[in-house]
């Protein structure tokens, strides 16, 4: 199949629709308005449900209802709106309802700005709402990945009964790139959900609930959730490495920033500095194995986490590197995106510091 030029937001929608998403609930917020706009046109064409909800709070609860009834359902928003959804996401996580939430991140905190940022990393990967839970978090770095990861998110979410999040910065949302669309999934291929509240009576009836009031019941339930997260950790960690085999300085970034880092790696190499890049594809589970493998190499002198935040993923990088090599940080915020030259400078400084500290 030939490639077509698509916006990141459209690619996300196509990835969802092509993997059986038949319910979308959203609310306008920049920079993701193209998602509800696109879905309002496409969803009726495939016989699905589209509702422009009265709020992000309502939208995530419509997802709770639809996904609870066994339909593949999605909502999308941007940072402030995703904060509003956190209550619902926590309930969904506890009730073990699979669904997909898209966050096209903008700059915060507060109402912040509408330009690209990655300040929601902690929120996305550490739970986000109240209680002990996690989402499966995928971070696309291209428009093709925006499509493919959304497609995959539905399968992962169904398989583990854990909600999945697509965490993308504003650039992914606005970028247009060639995309090869996956074929339309036959809905009959999607496994039956034997827990879905789609209308059953008497002894067959099903309950979806996140109220487990007795401590002797709640603890095993949360432990069971954790067991699933452990399983996800064992099976689903993904990262891309770029020229890391002999690298002295390893840059690490996710999303669009990783692409700027790769350009910086090439430029550093042209100057004789052996640089490489790790790009986490799954932010939860965090691909710590890729980092520890690089940290164990003699050639590796330092890591540099580059983020559109003031230092969030860097904490997971430090945990993964576990003190074996120094980990440094370079970040921009407020909607500013670092240029290749800035990253080159930061990488050289990091390498200098690491050598001085030895």
């Amino acid at each position, binding site marked *: 199949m030939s490639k077509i030029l698509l916006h990141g937001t459209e690619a996300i929608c196509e990835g969802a629709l092509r993997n059986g998403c038949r319910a979308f609930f959203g609310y306008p917020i920049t*920079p993701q308005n193209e998602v509800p706009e696109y879905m309002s046109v496409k969803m009726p064409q495939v016989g699905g449900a589209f509702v422009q909800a009265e709020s992000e709070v309502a939208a995530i609860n419509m997802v709770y209802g639809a996904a609870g009834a066994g339909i593949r359902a999605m909502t999308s928003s941007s940072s402030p709106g995703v904060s509003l959804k956190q209550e619902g996401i926590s309930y969904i996580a506890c009730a073990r309802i699979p669904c997909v939430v898209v966050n096209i991140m903008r700059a915060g905190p507060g109402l912040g700005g509408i330009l690209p940022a990655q300040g929601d990393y902690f929120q996305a990967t550490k739970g986000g709402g109240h209680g002990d839970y996690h989402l499966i978090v995928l971070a696309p770095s291209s428009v093709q990945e925006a499509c493919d990861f959304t497609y995959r998110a539905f399968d992962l979410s169904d398989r583990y009964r854990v909600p999945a999040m697509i965490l993308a910065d504003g650039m992914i949302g606005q970028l*247009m790139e060639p995309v090869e669309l996956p074929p339309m999934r036959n809905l009959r291929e999607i496994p039956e959900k034997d827990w879905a509240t789609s209308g059953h009576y008497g002894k067959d009836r099903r309950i979806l609930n996140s109220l487990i009031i007795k401590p002797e019941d709640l603890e095993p339930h949360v432990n069971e959730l954790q067991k699933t997260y452990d399983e996800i950790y064992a099976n689903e960690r993904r990262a891309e490495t770029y020229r890391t085999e002999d690298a002295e300085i390893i840059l690490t970034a996710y999303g669009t920033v990783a692409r*700027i880092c*790769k350009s910086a790696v090439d430029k550093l190499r042209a100057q004789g500095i052996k640089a490489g890049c790790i790009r986490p594809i799954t932010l939860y589970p965090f691909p710590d194995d890729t980092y520890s493998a690089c940290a164990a190499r003699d050639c590796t002198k330092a890591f540099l986490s580059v983020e559109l935040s003031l230092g969030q993923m860097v904490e997971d990088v430090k945990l993964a590197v576990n003190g074996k090599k120094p980990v440094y940080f370079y970040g921009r915020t407020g*909607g500013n995106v670092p240029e*290749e030259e800035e990253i080159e400078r930061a990488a050289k400084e990091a390498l200098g510091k690491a050598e001085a500290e030895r």
Partner: protein
Amino acid sequence: MIRILLAGQGGQGVLSAGRFLAESGLHEGKEVSYLPAYGPEMRGGTANCSVIVAEDPIASPLCTVPDVLIALNAPSFHKFAPRVKSGGIIIVNGSVSDAYAGRDDVRVIDLPANDLAMEAGDIRSANMAALGALVAATGLVREQSIVNCLQEKFVAKPRVLDCNRRAFEAGLAAVKK
């Protein structure tokens, strides 16, 4: 790999010119990316987008240092001219802007895009005149690829297609001669 920054006033067709360029590159089997500046610029004021056309996969989609700048008005010409890579090309809409970039390490093409567009039948085709100049100056994509895209886009609007096509050809001719 060539990085092109297209800039101008909202309504001048900067974003659609960028999309034609990206579509044409895609049709030729090249790697392309198109990144519109969004934010306050979306509503009136200035508009710009970054297009990259490459043989290999594109890493950074940003055009902070463009190889080519297309500036359809004076403010964007003066704002972005200093960023253009040394040895690069600037195509400036001479109908509404001076062409003094204040540097001599770039090639400045003074293109009367509005005049060419008006001669072609519609001032709104100035973006296509600039695209013609770009194709003539860089050979980035084939002429026919752009024409094909125009035909596809304006299949139901033969008059619009004619104006755009004539403006595109006028831009080509202006640089070739």
